[in-house]
């Protein structure tokens, strides 16, 4: 039996083990892995997710048991300190010695810390391990406690630096990015795209400082600032260094392996070092005189090393390694592929730029106009996967190559179907899954849907960037086999939301149980229950009180459940208009029940921290004072925001508040596939942000312009113009039709913007349905909406007046005690739940 020692249990070291156990009969080999970090390998690529939940386990590549189950000895928390090549042994820091037949070095790299005066100061961090992040979190909390406006700088404006910038921003620090070069992401972007990206990042609150060389880090014990030149100082309370990586090649140096001039252990295309029994893979390996700081090449290297050790000498690392990248910063799309910058002698560039929308797209096309050589996308990278594939596979491009990047409204055409890709096209580069692997698995009948494919091939489980393409491939292949691709709700109902809507309506189904008996199987789940609840609400305008147990927890208790299991109370404040007396009532109720109060982003007031048994008492007082439910908990109409409009504003064209109140009251309580928000602005200055809403009205000369299908949130979209210069009555008529059509046809939890994206024919089609009544259903839609409007009642009022309904607002069935696990801590004169452990 041969003994393989793997040094380093990072992403690539782990991948080596995984590929090994997939291929080898383990009885011929014994693997021992040493890892310096205190835990088994984790997904460094998604390290930033640790800030969201501090859940180290969720990042694990595989749990400890996985190694044991596969006969691998994993020794964590122990660094290998020496290699003795003549004896074929290694020693560790605790002076234990182990002998090997093959040694695989996967020691990765560490963050490069430039030799700046003062880097040793407190508050200076690098961004590489979970421990680094824990340190940053603790330090950020400390400095924020002293100074709520604390600032943090990130040294380095590359891919990782920007990710770190977003992370410090999410920690509540004022973020500053300091870059030595004159542009951001210097390796991936040209100057113009960097400028567009800079505008976009500044618009979300990142401060960017380019062409800045840091001379020293200021401060006594802890950092207080960065000094760039005389009189050029940036005050900061924390610094994250992200200035590149350095391979962890100490072991190679001391045992005399061939090294690169600037570090890294030299390997050939078999991943062998200058010692044939020693392999090096991942960010430690210097291949083609390059260190590849990405996982995909590292995973390929792991595969080659496994094959070579198992005797498959044909398995070699390719010469060209694709370095295309896509930034995963939430809300900012940036990608570059192939040759992003190209000398004019080699080809032509086509550039599309729109700074007002932070858009920049560049493609580089060969001189003969036939092939794509590379490109850059900023602001919208939806075409990245397809362009990347065209580039990788040398596919033909349209005669007018600009069609590849122009927006559809400018004559751009969506190009090519995923099925046109060659079978060898690598779709998921992290896991090396080709188009052929995916399609064959479906045509062979081995896989039937996306989750089968993910389970079989691991596609999408790495960086996740290929997901849209994998989904398309699965759907298109199923379609080509004549299989209907239906977005069924869950395992209990083999129907789409729209089909169920029709089934329930036509068959006059009375409740969830009957629907399950008639059209479903099993006993339901947290997906189909609230979905059917929403359908029942639209068809019969029943409130959440009639079938409380199929409601999502929020709707069941008519309140939003909070971090610590308490609830929030949000009374409706239509249009944001509120009287002093109403404010006093809210204040008094909040005081009496010791609730945290905050003005929401929806122009109303949220009272947080109520216990379940207090909810009815609080609502009784609010209802007596004339308030009603704000449905802040429901997938339903939330708010219609307004600006002050022509009654007070010197620019106002119409009475935006009056109209906002009318609309909010019209649609209050209306349940829908996802939440609905509206806005009404008194002029084009748009202070109510109506175009950031599912429906928005903006006053213009001669009436209202109606915009639809916008939202803020995770994927912001501006609403699109549906109709112009409408009078009040027509605006409401079109709104009725639009909303009802959306409610009837959208998928579960699909907001209006993604619904419109998928609607065949897009906005032009929607205009036909709503304005020209091309489907002949307009009258129907209006009547249905009017029926719902007429039946509205406040569900909180209904609940507190009905003793049977009140029973559910109690913590224990068998005791009047309340939850004694709740712990609040004081905050700025109010309270908040104690932090999670």
């Amino acid at each position, binding site marked *: 039996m041969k003994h393989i020692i793997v040094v380093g249990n990072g992403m690539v070291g782990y991948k080596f083990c995984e590929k090994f156990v997939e291929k080898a009969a383990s009885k011929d080999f014994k693997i021992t892995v040493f890892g310096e970090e205190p835990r088994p390998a984790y997904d460094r690529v998604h390290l930033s997710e640790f800030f969201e939940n501090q859940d180290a*386990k*969720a990042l694990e590549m595989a*749990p400890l048991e996985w190694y044991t189950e596969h006969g691998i000895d994993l020794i964590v928390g122990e660094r290998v300190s020496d290699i003795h090549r003549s004896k074929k042994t290694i020693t560790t820091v605790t002076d234990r010695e182990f002998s090997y037949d093959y040694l695989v070095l996967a020691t990765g790299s560490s963050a490069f810390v430039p030799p700046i005066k003062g880097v040793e100061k407190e508050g200076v961090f690098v961004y590489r391990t979970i421990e680094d992040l824990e340190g940053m979190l603790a330090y950020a909390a400390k400095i924020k406690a002293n100074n709520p406006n604390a600032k943090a700088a990130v040294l380095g404006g590359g891919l990782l630096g920007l990710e770190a910038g977003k992370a410090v921003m999410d920690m509540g620090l004022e973020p500053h990015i300091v870059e030595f070069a004159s542009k951001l992401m210097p390796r991936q972007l040209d100057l113009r795209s960097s400028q567009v990206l800079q505008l976009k990042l500044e618009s979300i609150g990142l401060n960017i400082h380019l062409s800045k060389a840091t001379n020293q880090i200021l401060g006594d014990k802890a950092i207080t600032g960065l000094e760039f030149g005389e009189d050029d100082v940036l005050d900061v309370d924390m610094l994250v260094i992200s200035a590149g990586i350095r391979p962890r090649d100490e072991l190679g140096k001391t045992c005399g392996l061939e090294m690169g001039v600037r570090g890294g252990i030299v390997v050939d295309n078999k991943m062998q070092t200058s010692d044939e029994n020693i392999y090096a893979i991942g960010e430690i390996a210097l291949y083609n005189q390059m260190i590849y700081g990405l996982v995909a090449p590292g995973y390929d290297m792991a595969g080659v090393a496994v094959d070579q050790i198992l005797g498959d000498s044909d398995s070699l690392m390719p010469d060209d390694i694709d370095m295309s990248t896509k930034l995963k910063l939430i809300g900012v799309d940036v990608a570059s592929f192939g040759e992003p910058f190209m000398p004019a002698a080699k080809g032509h560039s086509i550039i599309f730029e729109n700074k007002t929308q932070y858009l920049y797209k560049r493609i580089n096309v060969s001189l003969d106009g036939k092939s794509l050589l590379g490109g850059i996308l900023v602001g919208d990278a939806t075409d990245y996967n397809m362009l990347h594939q065209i580039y990788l596979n040398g596919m033909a491009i349209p005669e007018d190559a600009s069609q590849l990047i122009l927006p559809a409204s400018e004559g751009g055409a969506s190009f090519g179907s995923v099925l046109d890709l060659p079978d060898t096209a690598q779709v998921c580069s992290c896991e090396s899954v080709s188009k052929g692997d995916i399609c064959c698995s479906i045509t062979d009948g081995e896989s039937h849907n996306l989750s089968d494919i993910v389970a079989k091939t691991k596609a999408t489980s790495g960086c996740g960037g290929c997901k849209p393409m994998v989904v398309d491939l699965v759907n298109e292949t199923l379609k080509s086999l004549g299989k209907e691709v239906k977005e069924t709700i869950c*395992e*209990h109902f083999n129907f789409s939301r729209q089909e169920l809507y029709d089934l329930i309506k036509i068959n006059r189904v009375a409740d969830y*149980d009957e629907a*399950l008996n008639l059209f479903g199987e*099993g*006993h*339901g*789940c*947290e997906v*189909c*229950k*609230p979905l059917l609840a929403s359908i029942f609400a639209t068809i019969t305008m029943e409130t959440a009180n009639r079938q*409380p*147990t*199929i409601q*999502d*927890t*929020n709707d*069941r*208790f008519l309140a939003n*459940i909070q*971090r*610590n*299991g308490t609830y929030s109370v949000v009374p409706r404040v239509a249009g944001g208009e509120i009287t002093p007396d109403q404010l006093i009532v809210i204040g008094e109720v909040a005081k009496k029940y010791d609730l945290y109060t905050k003005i929401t982003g929806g122009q109303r007031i949220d009272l947080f921290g109520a216990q379940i048994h207090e909810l009815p008492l609080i609502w009784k007082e609010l209802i007596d004072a004339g308030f009603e439910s704000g449905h802040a908990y429901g997938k339903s109409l939330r708010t219609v925001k307004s600006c002050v409009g022509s009654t007070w504003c010197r620019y106002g064209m119409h009475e935006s508040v009056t109209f906002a109140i009318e609309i909010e009251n019209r649609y209050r309580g209306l349940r829908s596939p996802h939440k609905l928000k509206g806005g009404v602005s008194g002029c084009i200055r748009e202070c109510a942000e109506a175009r950031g809403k599912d429906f928005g009205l903006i006053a213009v000369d001669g009436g209202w312009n109606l915009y639809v299908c916008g939202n803020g949130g995770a994927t912001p979209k501006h609403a699109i113009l549906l109709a112009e210069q409408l009078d009040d009555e027509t605006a409401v008529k079109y709104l009725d039709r639009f909303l009802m059509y959306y409610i009837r046809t959208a998928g579960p939890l699909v907001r209006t913007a993604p619904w419109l994206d998928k609607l065949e024919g897009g906005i032009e089609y929607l205009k036909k349905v709503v304005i020209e009544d091309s489907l002949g259903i307009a009258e129907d839609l209006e009547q249905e909406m009017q029926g719902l409007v007429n039946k509205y009642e406040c569900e909180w009022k209904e609940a507190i007046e009905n003793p049977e309904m009140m029973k*559910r607002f109690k*913590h*224990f*069935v*068998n*005791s009047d*005690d309340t*939850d004694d*696990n709740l712990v609040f801590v004081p905050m700025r004169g109010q309270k908040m739940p104690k932090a*999670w*452990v």
Partner: protein
Amino acid sequence: MQDILSQYETVTENAVKEWFKVGLTSDFPENSGACIKYKTKQIAVYNFARTGKWYACQNLCPHKMEMVLSLGMIGDKEGVPKVACPMHKKNFSLEDGSNLAGEDLKIATYPVKIKDGNVYIGFSD
């Protein structure tokens, strides 16, 4: 925090020392959950009216240590009765308390007995 969690351990039917009466069957909503108190413990009790079965487990979600599982929606995954935590929708089997996505989270379960219209939960302490 760990202390709160450590008081919950699965009790099997033959280890029951006390069948604790927690109320009438009609006190528990059909096809849904409710919470009861036993000494310092909070226990979620589920009434699967469709199958006539009852289940009980700790009310504490091991993910973020919140007392919320009784408020979660119930149903089944491929026949296994389950509850979805209302906070982040982690799914737990009510048969053996395991996390249905294969995560390393587990909840303690307790046996339930129905007699003469009363609901009893089995405890070993």
